[in-house]
């Protein structure tokens, strides 16, 4: 009798709607929690997506769709004699030679100069060709050595238009050009200038050199075979590059940064899901008698489960939808304000394009709904399992207070987490690091009931005369699952926030200390030379050394060096290594250099990326020379994530013949005035060079460095705030819900003679205890997680190590805030409980 199959939807609808209508704020908080989590995850994903497509564009743009390319391994380029050699290789239909230089326009705008032979580029990379738009028709301008085509972004950045002149500086040379048209094939955001290849060679000192060869292959050519055939014929200054390599190279530069952002966002989603879980749990616990009634009246078990899931589903769906919209807005705002590297400094300027990603939207929306459903899973199971007859009697917490909470599962999770932190990186990403953090978090939360019990047990050993405190402790002791629920929310959000805070504070402190170590001189003089080459020549250097007031002067030059085709260029730093202000912040004492070996010092990131250890021998592809060097030590370098290698300045000059240096570091004599010395130094510079000189005091550089750090982590600070906010809301919601459910209890207490004030004190004590226990546990757990961030995640992602610094003040503030929040909320909710209505509530049904 009675059909199976369909659910009593009307009954379910009545139950759900009446509940929400009565407690709209409960449902609103749950929806908000999901929305926040989804919004953050989606926003970060969109921002990353826009970053990636900017990369793609940049690469596609600059390579212009050639079938195959040969690139120089350093900015010094390779001999142009390679061009006719390549042209004769069978399988190659056409070769387009390219001069590719980093340059500056009008002194401030960075752009890439491509010197093209339009006649070959028209065949191989037609998208790079310029379009005449200055109204003139003198066709010889196409071959002119003083005409240039600029992309829209280049014109924007330099502030010049078609028909005007523009000053371009590159490789130590400056020249003025007439803008005769634009580059319609270059998408927005790419600052490119195209000129005749002969002009580029002549004007920028590249005679006899090229940086790139673009190939169009014959239709039947086998690209892979051709690549390897060509690769074997290339000199050491050139290498084959495919689109894939280029993308990988640029992608890997900021991949770790972006993955970390993704993780932070997922954590936010996790916290949101957790809040939904606690909200759902409480709601189900509170309605247990109602559920019992309706089970007795004839609602099947599975219909009840379905009802709870339906509630969770609606919360998840509404929250996810709102979250997606919010995330879209957040991403647009962040991109507009901070750029698609979110201040990380990986991209230059331009407002990046935000493209809506429907696939990602569906994925994050589904994640939000899933988090909500999972949050409702346990409560639903609880409700289904409960015995209606028992629940009707409203015995409250069905768990026997005599049972001691188990710690085994929690311990297992913690041990697994600790083990996971020892695992190495996967594909350059600290997957196991994040997993171990999640396991630690789960273990910590699972440990809360036991921890609460144990800590409270300490209190219970001595009798407490204060009634309120005693009642508070007894209550927490007696209802461990409810206490655990509130605690878990606090611990989850606090630990995440503390972990990130400790990591950031440690990092910042280490960076500050490092800045002092690497900037020991008083003044730094740099030539505004974007790219490599140019600088103070040997004569000028000597003159500068002998200026009055200069105690010591060191010179430095940075050259990009390609050690692997799919990794970003490493910086080769030629600098004075000896001398009072020449030392490097080595991580361990330097090794003794074998005689006749050339020593180099490799930075931490370079050592991590390329697997270099002290004592190794390397071959460096410095154009034309390729010396074999000995790694004498590893030094800390926060400034160059792609890695750097230091070689002695004189050795570099000896190897390459290049004595020009672009940065001078000056230690002043005691009593010498900085401004006077600067003026004298300017005076000894050759004409024209002084205009490109910028002088910085080390303090300025340090401040800028820290400011850059803060900008990069601005978004992290924001993301930190979210979990704590969610946590506080969670605490408030939990405590107030529990308080309201105990109206009868308070009424009873008042009946037996407990004073209003004492009940108030009891509530505050309960909240404060929860806040304190949760805060301490959260901080402890957060510290453990922060060590994973510091010792595992950061080194595996960026190949940086740092020293741990503890923000004690922050800890104190957090605990105080939690105590105040929890206690205050309990009080706020309890004021209802203390109204006269409470006294009569004893008589009431519910």
């Amino acid at each position, binding site marked *: 009798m009675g059909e199976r199959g369909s659910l009593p939807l009307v009954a379910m609808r009545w139950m759900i709607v009446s509940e929400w209508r009565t407690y709209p704020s409960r449902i609103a908080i749950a929806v908000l929690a999901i929305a926040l989590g989804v919004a953050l995850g989606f926003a970060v994903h969109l921002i990353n997506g826009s970053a990636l497509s900017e990369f793609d564009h940049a690469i596609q743009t600059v390579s212009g769709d050639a079938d195959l390319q040969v690139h120089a391994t350093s900015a010094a380029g390779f001999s142009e004699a390679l061009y006719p050699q390549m042209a004769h290789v069978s399988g190659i239909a056409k070769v387009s030679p390219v001069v590719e230089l980093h340059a500056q326009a009008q002194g401030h705008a960075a752009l890439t100069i491509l010197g093209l032979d339009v006649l070959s580029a028209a*065949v191989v990379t037609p998208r790079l060709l310029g379009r005449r738009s200055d109204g003139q028709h003198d066709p010889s301008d*196409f071959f002119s050595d003083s005409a240039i085509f600029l992309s829209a972004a280049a014109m924007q950045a330099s502030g010049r238009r078609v028909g005007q002149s523009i000053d371009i500086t590159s490789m130590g040379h400056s020249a003025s050009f007439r803008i005769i048209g634009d580059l319609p094939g270059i998408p927005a955001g790419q600052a490119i200038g195209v000129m005749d290849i002969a002009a580029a060679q002549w004007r920028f000192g590249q005679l006899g050199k090229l940086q790139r060869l673009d190939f169009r292959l014959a239709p039947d050519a086998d690209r892979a075979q051709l690549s390897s055939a060509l690769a074997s014929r290339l000199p050491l200054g050139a290498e084959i590059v495919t689109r894939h390599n280029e993308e990988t190279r640029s992608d890997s530069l900021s991949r770790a940064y972006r993955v970390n952002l993704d993780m932070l966002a997922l954590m936010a989603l996790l916290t949101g899901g957790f809040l939904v879980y606690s909200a759902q749990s409480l709601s189900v616990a509170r309605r247990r008698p109602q559920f019992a009634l309706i089970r007795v009246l004839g609602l099947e078990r599975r219909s009840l489960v379905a009802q709870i899931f339906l509630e969770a589903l609606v919360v998840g769906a509404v929250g996810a939808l709102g979250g997606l919209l919010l995330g879209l807005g957040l991403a647009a705002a962040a991109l507009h304000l901070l750029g698609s590297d979110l201040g990380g400094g990986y991209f230059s300027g331009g407002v990046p394009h935000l493209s809506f990603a429907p696939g990602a939207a569906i994925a994050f929306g589904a994640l939000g709904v899933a988090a909500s459903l999972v949050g409702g899973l346990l409560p639903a199971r609880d409700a289904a399992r409960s015995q209606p007859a028992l629940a009707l009697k409203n015995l409250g917490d069905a768990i026997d207070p005599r049972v001691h909470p188990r710690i085994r599962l929690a311990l297992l999770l913690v041990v697994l987490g600790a083990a996971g932190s020892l695992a190495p990186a996967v594909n350059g990403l600290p997957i196991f690091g994040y997993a171990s953090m999640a396991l630690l978090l789960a273990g910590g939360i699972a440990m809360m009931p036991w921890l609460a019990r144990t800590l409270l047990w300490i209190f219970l050993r001595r009798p407490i005369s204060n009634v309120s405190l005693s009642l508070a402790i007894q209550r927490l002791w007696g209802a461990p699952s409810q206490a655990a629920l509130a605690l878990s929310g606090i611990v989850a959000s606090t630990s995440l926030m503390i972990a990130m805070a400790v990591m950031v504070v440690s990092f910042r402190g280490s960076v500050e200390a490092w800045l002092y170590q690497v900037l020991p001189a008083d003044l730094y003089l740099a030539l505004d030379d974007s790219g490599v080459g140019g600088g103070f020549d040997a004569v000028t250097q000597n003159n500068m050394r002998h200026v009055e007031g200069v105690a010591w002067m060191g010179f430095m030059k940075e050259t990009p060096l390609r050690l692997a085709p799919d990794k970003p260029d490493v910086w080769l730093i030629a600098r004075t290594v000896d001398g009072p202000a020449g030392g490097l912040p080595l991580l361990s004492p330097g090794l003794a250099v074998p005689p006749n070996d050339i020593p180099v010092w490799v930075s931490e990131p370079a050592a991590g990326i390329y697997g270099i250890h002290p004592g190794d021998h390397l071959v460096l592809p410095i154009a034309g020379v390729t010396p074999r060097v000995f790694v004498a030590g590893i030094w800390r370098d926060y400034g160059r994530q792609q890695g750097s290698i230091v070689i002695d300045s004189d050795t570099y000059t000896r190897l390459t013949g290049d004595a020009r240096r672009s940065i001078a570091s000056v230690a002043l004599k005691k009593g010498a005035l900085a401004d006077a010395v600067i003026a004298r130094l300017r005076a000894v510079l050759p004409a024209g060079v002084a205009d490109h000189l910028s002088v910085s005091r080390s303090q300025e550089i340090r401040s800028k460095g820290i400011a850059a750090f803060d900008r990069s982590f601005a978004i992290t600070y924001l993301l930190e705030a979210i979990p704590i906010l969610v946590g506080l809301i969670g605490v408030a919601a939990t405590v107030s819900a529990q308080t309201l459910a105990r109206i009868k209890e308070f009424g009873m207490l008042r009946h037996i003679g407990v004073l209003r004030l004492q009940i108030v004190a009891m509530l505050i004590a309960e909240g404060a205890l929860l806040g304190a226990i949760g805060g301490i546990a959260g901080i402890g757990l957060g510290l453990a997680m922060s060590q994973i961030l510091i010792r595992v995640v950061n080194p595996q992602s960026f190949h940086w190590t740092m020293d741990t610094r503890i923000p004690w003040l922050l800890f104190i503030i957090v605990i105080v805030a939690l105590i105040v929040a929890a206690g205050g909320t309990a009080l706020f909710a309890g004021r209802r409980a203390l109204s006269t209505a409470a006294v009569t509530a004893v008589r009431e049904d519910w």
Partner: protein
Amino acid sequence: MIRRRMTRWILLVIWLVSCGFAQAPARAEGPVYADVLPGHSLTFPADYGAHPDFRTEWWYVTGWLHTPDGPRGFQITFFRSRPDVDQNNPSAFSPKQIILAHVALSDPKLGKLIDDQRIARQGFGLANAATGDTAVVLDDWSLVRGADDVYTARAGTEAFGLNLHLRPTQALLIQGDRGYSSKGASAGEASYYYSAPHLSVAGTLRQGGRTVEVSGDAWLDHEWSSSFLAARSAGWDWTGLNLDDGGSLTAFQVRDAAGQPVWAGGSFRDASGATVVLRRDDVQFSTKRSWLSPRTGIHYPVVQTLTIKLPSGSRQFILTPLFDDQELDSRATGGPVYWEGAVKTDGGKGYLELVGYATAVKI
């Protein structure tokens, strides 16, 4: 598309050549172009080669091929152009000379022309017009005169390829006044010009995947100058005919925008080798039949009556094309439109070129 871009650049180079007329401000350190002067003798073998000081130069080979599948017309041309760029630029890429090449095949079975062109700046051995002898190279296309006086011409595309040996059977035909060929009334409107008629062709033609042996007769024009035509000229007609009796006829006229001839010239060499230089009034082209191009809507006088005045009296040659549609239209990609095809006459065969029937072409 490759062709698209190529033809655009050819047009640009043609424009480049016209720079000589534009009153453009003198470029700093621009090239100084050599002038074509009367009273200068051509010397060989030096004048077989390129003359880099002059603005424009070409080696223009046309001819008839006998193939197992019937007759074909062919044309292979190599141009050298000297753009107006700063001569101080020491870069090896500096476009001080540009090499262009064009090849076309007239196949009556196809009923229209198939052609291709290339362009590159001279340098690195990849494209070069050598001095001292005829040796023009552009990637794998070439026209080289060998030690045995035989020209080897190679050019081709995916659609067809030519590998021809051209053996001179007669002495060179020096055009104009010892090579000084007037193209207009003023002294500056002239070129140095010689021809090699009656070249005996032997070689291969690759078409449609098949390679066949061919033979035939060809004609080579080698001409160079720094300025050619008066500003008011709109186009020209040119023909070079290998006569069956061993003689050669060269005739051209320059027209204005209204189609009226402003200049004409040519030469006639009879079977014995006696050459008559044809002056402006000695040459007359008249249209016998026009052909309307269905593609471009242009009327070409494909059948012409050519009347030349020789000391011995007038002679008339009626030129009829191998087939009507030998039009080259690259206007869609910014190139020129002209008609250039194999023609025969009573007692001879050769090529006819009709330029400037669409819009004015400045050269």
